């Protein structure tokens, strides 16, 4: 049995000579919550579209539950729920009618889940979609996705337009219910705090390239901010040193891989190490993206 929910191999998508996605290799384990991070226009949505067969890869391949996205689209879609970045649905249908519409497509559809999430997310089910607030429109998308009984949830910016309470409810639902069912959750976002709160794995994409992908804990343990005081300390970046900021005699290094030995090296150069601190996901993300620029 394939242990990966999503696997891509040098996946490329170009639009008129512009590389939206430039050969990414994703590995999303089954049952994991995976945060797909990137700035606007980084290639997150294009990647999601290729996984769902909405757009064809220019090169490379991708598999969902071991099935080729180009050849076995129907089988993938039967097991996959999706929340689009653009939260547009049929404007004249009510949320209840959208449920009625969607129900027939999925054999694992759960009406009890509809009731539960409609109550939890406080969705006005009898109101036309066009009359709903942006936040409630997003909630309808989430309701439809969560009620499918899918093995894989692909959520593209799922918290758009949601208020903090709703975001909190959603993250709770994803972390608790999704995990209880053994569902894999792949969600793209630039809301780093949300990813940090529930994701076990994270991938960072920028300008169509996957800069990093690993367990979130490993990512956090890998990066360190070293503050050192001294004169004429090294100020160049390298594969190990992502960035150096100099303020007078103080040097702030963002280091990946083996921070202790790097700090020891600085000490040998006469530096006094004042602090070695872990970085938040936000800081790591910013460092990675800035380095890429």
């Amino acid at each position: 049995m394939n242990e990966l929910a999503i696997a891509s191999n040098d996946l490329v998508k170009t639009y008129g000579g512009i590389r939206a996605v430039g050969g990414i290799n994703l590995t999303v384990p089954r049952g994991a919550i995976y945060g797909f991070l990137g700035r606007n226009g980084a290639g997150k949505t294009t990647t999601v579209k290729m996984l769902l067969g909405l757009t064809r890869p220019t090169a490379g391949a991708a598999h969902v539950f071991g099935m080729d996205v180009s050849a076995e689209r129907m089988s993938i879609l039967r097991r996959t729920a999706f929340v689009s970045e653009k939260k547009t649905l049929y404007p004249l249908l009510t949320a209840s009618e959208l449920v009625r519409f969607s129900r027939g497509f999925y054999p694992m559809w759960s009406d009890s889940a509809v009731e539960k999430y409609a109550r939890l997310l406080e969705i006005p089910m009898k109101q036309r979609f066009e009359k709903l607030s942006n936040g409630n429109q997003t909630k309808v998308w989430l309701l439809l996705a969560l009620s499918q009984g899918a093995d894989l949830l692909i959520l593209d910016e799922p918290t758009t337009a949601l208020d903090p309470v709703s975001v909190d409810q959603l993250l709770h639902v994803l972390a608790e219910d999704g995990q209880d069912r053994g569902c894999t959750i792949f969600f793209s976002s630039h809301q780093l705090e949300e990813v940090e709160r529930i994701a076990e794995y994270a991938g960072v994409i920028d300008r169509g390239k996957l800069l990093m992908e690993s367990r979130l804990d490993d990512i956090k343990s890998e990066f360190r901010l070293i503050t050192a005081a001294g004169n004429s300390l090294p100020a160049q970046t390298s594969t190990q040193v992502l960035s150096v900021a100099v303020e007078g005699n103080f040097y702030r290094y963002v280091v990946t891989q083996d921070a202790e030995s790097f700090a020891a090296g600085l000490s040998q150069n006469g530096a006094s190490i004042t602090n070695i601190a872990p970085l938040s996901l936000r800081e790591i993300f910013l460092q990675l993206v800035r380095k890429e620029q």
Partner: protein
Amino acid sequence: MYFWKCWRDTRSFFVVFLIIAAIVMPVAAVVGLGTHLVEDFGTSAFTDTFDLILTVVALGLGAIGAIHEFADKTAQFLFTKPRSRAYFVWVGWAVGFAELLAIAIVNFLAGWATLSHYSKNPFHSTLNGSMRAQNILNALIFCLWAYCLTYALTVLRRNGLKGLGASMGILFGFPLFAVAIRWRWHIDLPFPPDPIGSLPLAMSSIIWILVAMFFVLAAQLVVERTEI
């Protein structure tokens, strides 16, 4: 599911024209009561209203019933359902076609019942002679053609009004174009439901039906290849 959605999108239009189709001939008969209008012109009035109503319905259903997912930006929602895009194209087409057929049947039965009330030979006019089954068949072929063309053009242009405009341009512009060609080069361009060259009428009818279906197939191929 999608059948229900297509029905929901077109039902208002369908019901309005179903009512019109049902009452047009009885109303015309009541208006012409006591005169010889029904006996003399009943059959031609029936064929004219039959043609007109079905043409309008074919154009309207083609524009309303075709998938509007690209214009409405709902393509990401619909095309991530576990059904092929061809399924959505043909279900939309089938619902509209069923409605077109229902209106044709109701209009025909209402016309037949009305004319039967006044004459033992309802489809015979003292002035214009008898109406033949071919007249009805020709009207249906033309309407199928108009419906499929409008449906396909609405899908291609991604907009009901644009599709309708393009379709009407072809349907009403082509006969003028054909006249110009005939006048200048003495070539007869076929147009549905007229016979194609020297082919028998039945063969010509089959070809026109196949061409109409080809329009929908073309729409399907375009939808299948569209990147979202």
